[in-house]
């Protein structure tokens, strides 16, 4: 029996880092059950590095299907510590079993699809619930906007093109605990360092509150729908949600009338 081969990666390892290891493992023909994926913790000393890779055995050059690469890219954005092992297992098995990627009933594929689904939702939520506030900078022609958002997963690379394609005539900065996305002038820059929250007042937000209050129809109350679509975890960064109790009270008064 082969000894398990240990690989240590940082907790926020990117797709590229995982891919380099996975490629080497595949070339050395190491099956998933012989690989142990570890996450580097603060206690680890610098020498807790990955084992040297076994000799590459000359194999024929294989390509990975595009659909599979796309799935692997998604699941490697996930924060689950199991993602490295799962991704390698999916990769290994699809190389040996054609068409596996479409077999949604397979436990590995089902788990991968589930992770990919959570990533899609996270990306979607970020597009929806990022809120910019204007930061007035004197003597500058371009306008500056700043946002604070808390994504569940490492999705900044996936979501950045959306913001870059949407807001091109202003400068903006999205700060998150998992890094930042910024557009200054023409470039879009992504970092992975955790950011701190920046508090900015923007008076236009008052008009947004007015709109939110007025577009609500007090004759129809569907709180469950609202909560399932806009989960509670986002509310702390969506200031208009503070108006909800007051809106419900006035809806009640409206009904009694």
């Amino acid at each position: 029996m082969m000894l398990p081969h240990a690989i240590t990666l940082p907790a926020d390892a990117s797709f590229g880092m995982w891919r380099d290891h996975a490629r080497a493992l595949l070339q050395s023909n190491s099956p998933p059950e012989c690989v142990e994926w570890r996450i580097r913790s603060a206690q680890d000393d610098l020498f807790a590095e990955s084992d040297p890779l076994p000799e590459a055995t000359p194999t024929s050059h294989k390509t990975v299907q595009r659909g599979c690469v796309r799935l692997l890219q998604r699941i490697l954005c996930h924060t689950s510590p199991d993602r490295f092992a799962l991704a390698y297992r999916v990769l290994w098995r699809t190389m040996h079993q054609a068409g596996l990627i479409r077999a949604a009933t397979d436990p590995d594929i089902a788990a991968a699809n589930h992770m990919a689904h959570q990533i899609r939702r996270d990306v979607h939520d970020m597009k929806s619930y990022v809120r910019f506030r204007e930061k007035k900078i004197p003597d500058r022609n371009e306008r500056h906007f700043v946002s604070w958002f808390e994504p569940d997963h490492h999705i900044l690379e996936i979501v950045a093109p959306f913001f870059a394609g949407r807001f091109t005539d202003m400068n903006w900065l999205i700060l998150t605990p998992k890094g930042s996305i910024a557009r200054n002038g023409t470039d879009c820059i992504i970092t992975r360092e955790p950011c701190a929250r920046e508090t900015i007042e923007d008076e236009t937000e008052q008009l947004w509150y007015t709109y939110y209050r007025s577009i609500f129809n007090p004759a129809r109350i569907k709180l469950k729908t609202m909560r399932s679509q806009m989960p509670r975890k986002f509310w702390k960064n969506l200031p208009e949600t503070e108006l909800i109790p007051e809106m419900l009270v006035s809806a009640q008064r409206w009904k009694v009338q």
Partner: protein
Amino acid sequence: MKRTFSQRLAILSDAAKYDASCASSGTEKRTSKSGGKGLGSTESSGICHAFTPDGRCVSLLKILMTNFCIYDCAYCINRIFSGVERARFSAEDIVWLTLEFYRRNYIEGLFLSSGIIRSSDYTMEELVRVARTLRLDHNFRGYIHLKTIPDASPELLAEAGLYADRLSINVEMPTEQGLASYAPEKNAAGIRSAMGHIRYRMDAAREKAPSGRRPPRFAPGGQSTQMIVGADAATDQDILSSSASLYTGYQLRRVYYSAFSPIPDASVKLPLIRPPLLREHRLYQADWLFRFYGFNFQELTENRPDGMLDLEMDPKLSWALDHRDIFPVDINRADRETLFRIPGIGPRSVIALLAARKHRTIRLEDLERLKISIRKIRPFITTPDWRPTRLADRTDLRTLFKPAPAQLSLL
């Protein structure tokens, strides 16, 4: 006394809430990267940026240019004899507000409508001016939905289609009689002919001329409409057959159903009721079955004695209980159309099932991995390890699926 900007915003958005549509989907994909600097982009599936406690999403800045109106439509809060406060925004006000909201990522774009002031053409021209200013002066590439005034001139309509992603005209009432009695100034034939005109222009915009020249752009997001449910005597069957002709005859992207909300200062012609929200929900489910599941509307109501959908269960389940002879379905053998008929299975699950079936025989536990609810689907299917007790024989079948009785609220 002159009202502040915020007060006018409150009045004009309050007046717009009776339009159900807030969709920002179905248009061409655009970004602001190509063709110089601009603001905005569109996604194929639309984005909701907030939800209000009525369960509706906020995707567009939905607003009226003015709520002054020369018409007297009984169901409308802005009819000429209603006592509501009136206000008006200039085209520049609306352009400014749209851009500022957009920059803060509150919205996907603008849904602009208006009461009729002076004349149909004057009103339509003002609406078009907002869209034109946004597109040409500010390079706005977000979503624009314009409510169209049915009897405005064809030139204005052509220009509206040039800038807007979606155009809509509300048919308001499911039947012609309903419209005639509630909206004396509107006429059903005029509305239909305007819809036909929009459809003609959309078709023309897709065709290339023999010379290779592309015709001008026209509302790539299509057209939609809305009808009010529960204000007149129309049955669900009337409503759905009206939808069927709208979808097939005018190629509408969406028909919205709006449960009639009692409006403040209502006309005496109207019933004093709570909005029939559950009925509205069932109509949307039926609409969904038509658009994505291959049902036709006729099937859904033909077995209903009073022409109304069952309020106690969704129309698909209700249909299945009326057609027990086709169930249980063998999930490993049934064709695509039959899979779509099984209660508890949606289009996504059907695609996953068909793909998974090529790979292996589906057992009950596999369904769980496909995120299909076994509890809902079990009475209607067979798998190698599952066969329901004979469904067709049970007479108490309805009670099995009916929701548990609940106490009524006092209010």
